[in-house]
């Protein structure tokens, strides 16, 4: 692994940790969901850097796509039906 790749990997790992911390600390649910999706997105880029594009695809589609959307979906329902 070249120095450039190593630097990229370390930067991605640190951003993942930072995004996870944001998801834990923030008071806003929307930002927390987005930050959790960001962790998955960084993870999928990380998998590409580590030469595992198949895993990266699954992570991007399920972890960062479906899960994030599902959270928003549920939040929309809570907002809609919570007012009743």
């Amino acid at each position: 692994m070249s120095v450039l790749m190593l630097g990229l990997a370390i930067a991605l790992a640190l951003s993942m940790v930072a995004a996870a911390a944001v998801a834990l600390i923030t008071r806003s649910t929307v930002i927390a969901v987005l930050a959790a999706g960001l962790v998955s997105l960084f993870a999928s880029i990380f998998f590409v850097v580590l030469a595992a594009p198949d895993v990266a695809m699954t992570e991007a589609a399920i972890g960062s796509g479906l899960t994030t959307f599902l959270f928003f979906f549920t939040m929309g329902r809570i907002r809609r039906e919570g007012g009743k």
Partner: protein
Amino acid sequence: MIRHVVVALLVALLGIAFWTLTAGYLPDAELNRTAAYYAAHAQDEVGAPNIVTGIIVTWRGLDTLGEVTVLFLTSAVIALVLTQSKTPAGATGAGFLPSGELLTTGTRMIVPLIVLLGAYVIMNGHLTPGGGFQGGAILASGALLTLLAEPTRRFGHSVIARVESASGLTYVLVGLAGMMIAGGFLDNGILPLGRFGAMLSAGAIPLISVLIGLKVGAEFSSILESLHETEDA
């Protein structure tokens, strides 16, 4: 106070456990015996340029079947639990907020592309990164986007269920055919290997990829569908 100490202690223990796992980690200098066999024989036995798909569809095909079965059980359990609080007939779409011009127009443009990408990833699973599972998840995200943009739309439950069971059944039948004709369960040698790197090559791998893709896509869609159609009674 004592709770915080316990939590900190547990986190520290977890950190130590991970540290001991990773501190002594040395990357292998060479592939182990199984991996070396897979890498050496992927071309002549499986015929798939993408070794990963070749492994998970043929040599480790049973694992993939198990994975898909777990997903099927999940969707079945979710449907079973949520049918208890089904939307009363005639009340569909009453309390939905409109989803907005941006989302509606964007969905109309993007969903066909997403479905096309899913089909591409499924069909080229043996050539480029991807395969049935990844493509199925992409297909399901297309279905999810449609649900988000048009909350009142209903997909056909029976169609999804039929696609799901038909592809699952065919998957197992292809596996059994491998036992009869070729070397074992889910052996891809039931169809000719073809020219290495061609679209229709690698034996039964494209067929199995399509089946897995349909099954995974249908399962995810049915999970989303069940979640979507449930109303609090």
